[in-house]
């Protein structure tokens, strides 16, 4: 595991469940820390350009392959630009960052080397978390299928 910040020009994706998407738009509540998980240090995402030598389709395919949590067919991977997120949110939260945080293999799961986190977020049930979540959601640039097609 490393804690290096991701380059501003790079991109991240986050899986969002179907009930958080309406009319093709992702709700900002998907970008809050979970109040019932005080051990969480950030909102989990995956770093597309970790697989720098591959095109986007292959990058997404690799991320899907090692993704550990359950996914629904109608869920989506929301893509965001690292620099856009940090600059857009910085007006309200200077501490925000996107840090590489790879996951080692464990308990039947392969390693997830592109795993990263959006860090510096306020407590998940706070009003500020609601505002920051909506700001981050404004930075979504694309939605990709949850599974390879």
């Amino acid at each position, binding site marked *: 595991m490393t804690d290096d910040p991701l380059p501003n020009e790079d991109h991240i994706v986050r899986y969002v*469940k*179907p*009930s*958080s*998407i*309406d*009319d093709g*738009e992702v*709700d*900002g*509540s998907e970008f809050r820390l*979970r*109040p019932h998980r005080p051990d969480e240090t950030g909102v989990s995402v995956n770093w597309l350009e970790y697989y720098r030598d591959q095109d986007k389709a292959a990058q997404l395919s690799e991320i899907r392959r090692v993704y550990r949590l359950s996914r*629904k067919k109608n869920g989506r991977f929301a893509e965001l630009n690292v620099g856009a997120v940090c600059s857009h949110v910085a007006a*309200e939260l200077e501490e925000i960052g996107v840090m590489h945080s790879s996951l080692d293999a464990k308990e039947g799961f392969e390693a997830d080397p592109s795993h990263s986190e959006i860090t510096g977020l306020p407590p998940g049930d706070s*009003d*500020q978390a*609601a*505002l920051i979540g*909506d*700001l981050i959601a*404004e930075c979504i640039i694309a939605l990709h299928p949850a599974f390879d097609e």
Partner: protein
Amino acid sequence: MTMLATADVMSFDPSYQEPAIIREVGSDSAFSVFPAPERRWKAVAPVPPQGDDESSDLSALSSLTDFIVRVLEPHRAVSAELAERAKATKAVYQAYLARIETLKSDASLDGFSMNKASECDFWSFIKSSPYVKKGRLVLMDNGNLRATWKDETGNHIGLQFLGNGSIQYVIFRHRPNGRVSRVAGCDTLKGIERQIQAFDLKPLLYA
């Protein structure tokens, strides 16, 4: 009712005789919005063009038509608009009902349920105004409903219905000078309405 009855009996019939009640009430009555047609025409009808007797008669008829249309059509226009708005509101409610059913179904597959109190707060808010626009509706991991409205300029309202009569709100208001006001907090339903008014965002939420 007297006004409507009076309007209904106005006609193009030159032999029209106004109802006795109108004559009795007189022009100074509180009900004389539509006073004796002959007198009213002389008061508001435009001066007909000079010409022979036949053309003068036609001009007077046109003036009566204009007067009746100006008097009667506004009522019809208002009724038609109200009917359209009621239809639009019903469509919004039906869309929300369908969306909520989908969210409940998704939640049960994921092993949790929608917070009933949150659902009640949501409907209380939606029904607090007859002309609320359809927004986006999602179900949060805590079982609460959250609705958002956005426009093309980036103005944004996000409301999480907490289920205890409180609503957590997020408001983004883009100002003409390029600045953006961003606020978040919790308030009651009435308080939220005041917040929306204070930020001049009623058009975002209400038709």
